[in-house]
């Protein structure tokens, strides 16, 4: 079984650039640096949460790890194997162990397939079991995600948003994966349904010993599900720490601002750090530290030198010139 604390996935200096072309005869004029040198590792059985605002590259990062997008540079190491350069056939073996839950359950299910067919499709593709065994697996999966086995014959339009997301989870579980990337799994759902889905995902993690990479823009959701949290800004990881540590002692000025701008029912009149301006374009990121034009603690070094992500206390990493490790 899963040994605790062994590294399941390691990402080293991962990059994903989208080339931008112009002209009738397309000419390369620049790159959109969606993910620009991100490194971290995830231990077996833990949940790593990734937060950031739109355009920070968190979704691209998720897709690149599963090689749904081909990385431009860097390495992805899964259980000791470098999967960055594996060919299609070799990759297929690993795909079984790594699955994804998507944001929009509406768009990620085929409207012409019953939900039973959708959930069983991965089994068919990977040639697992015969019809009868698949039927059994399907029944178990449906029960585990809180649906009735009889609902297998329904089409997606006959289900509510929350039920569709349950189908999405069942499909991701079909191949009995070890690692699941969940990209904003609850952002499209109503509040009362969000809690149901989050609880379900936590239950399944406990039952199956799953490892999650949980991507969301909502810090309160991340706080509920993740053990460690990484904060992204413009294609970079700017801070990574244990959940409690990050909330108690955010180091990066961006994290600080992010934490203070989350509306909360519980706190009143807390100190707010309002960020001026907006996230700049990843096509032409600011020089030096990418956050410096919006940072209230920027120094002269910040506009010229790019801060590296370094460990400033045990397990707490930050990329900021204010901290010199």
């Amino acid at each position, binding site marked *: 079984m899963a040994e605790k604390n062994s590294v399941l996935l390691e990402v080293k200096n991962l990059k994903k650039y989208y080339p931008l072309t112009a002209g009738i005869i397309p000419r390369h004029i620049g790159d959109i640096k969606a993910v620009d040198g991100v490194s971290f590792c995830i231990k077996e059985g833990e949940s790593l949460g990734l937060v950031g605002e739109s355009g920070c590259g968190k979704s691209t990062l998720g897709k690149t790890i599963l090689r749904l997008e081909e990385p431009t540079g860097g390495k992805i190491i899964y259980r000791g194997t470098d999967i960055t350069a594996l060919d299609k056939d070799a990759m297929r073996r690993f795909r079984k162990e790594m699955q994804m839950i998507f944001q929009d359950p509406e768009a990620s299910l085929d409207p012409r397939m019953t939900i039973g067919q959708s959930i069983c499709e991965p089994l068919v593709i990977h040639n697992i079991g015969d019809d009868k065994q698949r039927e059994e697996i399907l029944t178990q999966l449906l029960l585990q995600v809180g649906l009735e086995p009889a609902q297998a014959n329904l089409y997606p339009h006959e289900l509510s948003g929350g039920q569709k997301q349950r189908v999405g989870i069942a499909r991701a579980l079909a191949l009995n994966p070890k690692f699941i990337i969940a990209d904003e799994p609850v952002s499209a759902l109503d509040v009362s349904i969000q809690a149901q889905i989050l609880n379900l995902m936590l239950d399944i993690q406990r039952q199956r010993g799953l490892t999650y990479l949980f991507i969301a823009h909502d810090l309160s959701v991340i706080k509920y599900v993740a053990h460690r949290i990484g904060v992204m800004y413009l294609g970079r990881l700017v801070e990574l720490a244990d959940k409690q540590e990050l909330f108690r002692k955010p180091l990066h000025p961006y994290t600080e601002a992010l934490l203070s701008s989350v509306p909360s*029912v519980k706190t009143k009149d807390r100190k707010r750090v309002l960020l001026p301006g907006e996230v700049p374009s990843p096509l032409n990121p600011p020089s030096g530290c990418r956050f410096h034009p919006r940072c209230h603690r920027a120094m002269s070094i910040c506009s010229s030198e790019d801060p590296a992500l370094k460990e400033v206390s045990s397990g707490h990493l930050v990329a900021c010139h204010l901290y010199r490790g």
Partner: protein
Amino acid sequence: METGNIDAIVLRVNELRTYFFTRRGVIKAVDGVSFELRRGECLCLVGESGCGKTVTALSILRLFDSPPGRIVGGTVCYNSTDLTTCSPQQLRRIRGKEIALILQEAQSALNPVLTIGDQIIEQMRLHLPMDTNEARAKAVRLLREMGIPSAEDVLGYYPHQLSGGMKQRVLVAISLSCDPRVLIADEPTTAVDVTIKAQILDMFRELKEKRQMSIIFITHDLGVVAEIGDRAVIMYGGKDVETAPIPDIINFPKHPYTMGLLECLPDVAKEVERLNSIPGMPPDPSYLPSGCAFHPRCPRALDICPRQEPPLVQLSKEHKVRCHLYG
């Protein structure tokens, strides 16, 4: 007449019912909602999808599609005019001029082929005795007030040249251009990022405090409500199930639905092992459960709940609830 000296009432919605008559049946989108909006307050309409909060807002200005929609009951009183029955001419003078509406998606609310300047000036020229130059000057002033840098240049921009947060500010600028007394904002912060959300909430707070604007703020996010609201109307199944000042809603919720909403909310300031979720899902407004619409999901449902609609119970001067547990 109202007693209203300090808490002068600007707008009063009474037992409003808006139904949609479709081939598949009658959809009771709004089914008996009452509240009053006081001068200089921010009243939040809170609820999940399908609870009727947006249709309530649209009904105030009669902006829903008709047919199939129709206001089948209730009144909306503004300045002793009943907006549900007044003439289209009267209504046109009120829309945008007296009561302004900010729609949900900034992206689709702006006309993509007109410049920002054209869209702000259009409304002022329609309602106010102003020439283009005056209107232009006012537009620049408004954009600046909304915190838009280089406002003169922005007047010449098209919507696609602006970011989501900027578009939201432009929409607020348009809605303020005729100095309305009431602002209705439908989920103005849902489509934007957290840091931008904080900026926009600050802007609304300022409007309320500096201009004494009366705001109806529609949202599903209780965190946002706690940040800017004075009072809240919690909606479920087309009805106002609980109305109270925000501190009461958060600290002493009475309706089981309000309690459930608060408990199932992950919150950055909370340490919880497990969220208490509400079982089931919000009802489809075309098949509302009998009696109290919340009874199938209610942990404290009584025998009477499926049989009889709960009456509105006045718990205190400011706290109203529709639930059989009380009264």
